[in-house]
């Protein structure tokens, strides 16, 4: 291998160059390794902490729907059923399981193993099964958050009684229910079908998901057409010159503005000036649209720029008007890039919290928003709210909601990558 004219200096220099590139490779691999480890650590803890939020502890009781108690008006109307005393019914049902418990204090403790939501559950069941009035039925009811935490062993069972929220007595009852097969962990449908709640076991993310969807819809509807139109105008029609440069610099500056500033702008513009409703997806969407617009314009311009000029010249030389050149040739070729740019900016908007805090989307809202004017929250803000709650059970909800948000983000980014790879450039 030794070259005839190779001097020892040259050989040494060559070895040095190889060593340098090997070193460089190692730096790269190390950096990548650290990044991947961080990612796995993050995902791992989220999954470990969050997966339990997709399950829920339920308790089986045989409930007798005494007509005089649950149907005070006696006509089985929704109004009458709403006035029923379901707590009393639940109390009786529990009494039947634990007849030996007599003292008022123990009774209160016993009733606390069920969620406050159990009464609503009974009421809902009755509305959908009116024939149950005056009968006895065996039903599964939600346990309280403390029971849930106990059953999921999130709290240490060996802690001294004074340091846990489940008393020895309650623990004994739960053990009894378990041996009787009256206690189970089931998929937590409620988490996906209800809005926020003060009671962790009843809190769901549907409200936040719908709020996010509506907000994102507004963001997209506003920023996509505006962004594409501005980018096409700037890139394909506007005269290049000092003004174009000025505008370009300013768009780049806008893209670098911290998102909270857009929140302040949204607050001043949409709430104080235009008096749009607080906490509404409409305002959130408009605010996020302002934030997304510069990035979208930049991404779109980049993909327009990547369309080679000879394509434009070819069309122009055939007599295509400037608009035809753009519509028939440039936009179809730029579309994949524009789409990826849009999806990525939408993903960014989906994860955005700070500007939404400024326009009041941080309020506690139980109802699921029906439209863009209803008060609502969004996924990242919901996470923020739960993370801020003192109840232990909100911890797993926080991680669960984070997992769902991450799932959405990863899906969107994967879609962007898929589109980018799928629609290969054919020129």
């Amino acid at each position, binding site marked *: 291998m030794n070259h005839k004219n190779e001097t020892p200096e040259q050989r040494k220099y060559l070895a040095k160059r190889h060593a340098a590139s090997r070193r460089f490779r190692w730096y790269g691999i190390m950096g990548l390794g650290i990044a991947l480890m961080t990612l796995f650590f993050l995902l791992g803890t989220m999954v470990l902490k969050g997966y339990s939020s997709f399950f829920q502890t339920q308790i089986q009781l045989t409930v007798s729907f005494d007509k005089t108690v649950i149907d005070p008006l006696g006509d089985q109307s929704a109004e009458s059923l709403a006035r029923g005393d379901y707590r009393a019914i639940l109390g009786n049902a529990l009494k039947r399981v634990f007849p030996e418990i007599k003292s008022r204090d123990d009774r209160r403790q016993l009733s606390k193993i069920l969620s406050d939501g159990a009464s609503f559950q009974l009421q809902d069941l009755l509305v959908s099964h009116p024939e149950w009035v005056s009968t006895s039925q065996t039903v599964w009811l939600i346990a309280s958050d403390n029971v849930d935490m106990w059953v999921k062993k999130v709290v240490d069972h060996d802690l001294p009684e004074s340091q846990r929220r489940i008393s020895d007595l309650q623990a004994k009852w739960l053990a009894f229910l378990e041996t009787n097969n009256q206690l189970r962990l089931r998929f937590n449908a409620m988490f996906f079908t209800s809005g926020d709640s003060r009671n962790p076991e009843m809190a769901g993310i549907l409200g936040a998901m719908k709020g996010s969807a509506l907000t994102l819809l507004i963001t997209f509807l506003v920023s996509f057409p505006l962004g594409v139109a501005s980018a096409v105008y700037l890139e394909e029609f506007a005269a290049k010159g000092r003004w174009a440069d000025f505008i370009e610099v300013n768009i780049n500056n806008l893209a670098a503005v911290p998102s909270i500033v857009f929140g302040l702008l949204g607050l001043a513009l949409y709430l104080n000036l235009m008096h749009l409703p607080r906490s509404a997806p409409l305002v959130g969407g408009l605010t996020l649209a302002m934030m997304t617009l510069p990035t979208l314009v930049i991404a779109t311009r980049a993909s327009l720029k990547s369309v080679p000029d*000879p*394509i434009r010249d070819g069309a122009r*030389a*055939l007599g295509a008007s400037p608009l035809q050149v753009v519509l*028939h*040739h440039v936009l179809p070729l730029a579309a994949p890039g524009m789409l990826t740019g849009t999806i990525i900016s939408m993903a960014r908007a989906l994860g955005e919290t700070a500007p939404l805090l400024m326009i009041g989307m941080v309020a506690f809202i139980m109802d699921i928003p029906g439209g863009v004017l209803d008060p609502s929250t969004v996924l990242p803000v919901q996470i923020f709210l739960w993370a801020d709650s003192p109840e232990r059970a909100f911890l797993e909800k926080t991680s669960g909601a984070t997992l769902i948000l991450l799932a959405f983000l990863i899906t969107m980014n994967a879609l962007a990558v898929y589109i980018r790879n799928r629609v290969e450039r054919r020129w």
Partner: protein
Amino acid sequence: MVGKNVNYSFETMHLEASKSITPPRVKMEAKGVDVYYGDKQALEKVDLPVPLNRVTALIGPSGCGKSTFLKCLNRMNDTVVGCRVTGSITLDEEDIHSPTVDVVQLRARVGMVFQKPNPFPKSIYDNIAYGPRIHGMTRDRTELDQIVEESLARAGLWNEVKERLQEPGTSLSGGQQQRLCIARAIAVNPEVVLMDEPCSALDPIATARIEELIDELCNKYTIIIVTHSMQQAARVSHYTGFFHMGELVEYDHTEAIFTNPQQERTKGYVTGRFG
């Protein structure tokens, strides 16, 4: 000074006599054309007639303004930032800069083929059909099919691609792509076809093919071809203009330019002493 350099007289040309009895009409004519890119002057006082149904070659060292001149003829310079064209350019005696001339219409009459083949990333069929479609030249699909076939046939490409009209135009070889671009240009039935070094990106065989094609096409179209190859100019053209440093140094029958140039600079260039 330019006026006396340009020495053309269609009547006395034996090449012409062999081709047709009547002297060719002037199809396009540039008079006193100056072109500036910003403050920089790229062309100075260019006077050049383009005879009907003949091939006119523009030669000269690179950067002398050949492409610039060609782009003036279909106003492709309009979109170039800072480019300013003065003087008169006529097509059938009508000034192409006059307000009555629509640039879209002008480009349908004066087609262009570029140095690097630039087929659209669409099917072969759609490449050809694009021009007729945007100009509303056909009433139905059969008419369009016919134009596509005719144009491809005239560009000598039909037999090679008739089985694969739906494949992307970019899947063709370089030479085929360039013929596709020629077919695309003639599909709108132009009167003049401008070609800017159409063979410079092609191998010798593909080049020979295109040269043959130019020879056939000039019966129907007026062709202006920019080339850096003097052999090519000698092979395909009837008239040749020699550009140098933004001036049209000499314009004459091709044979005269190559055998008996009047200007020292022309002589130097065609004998390969500079350029």
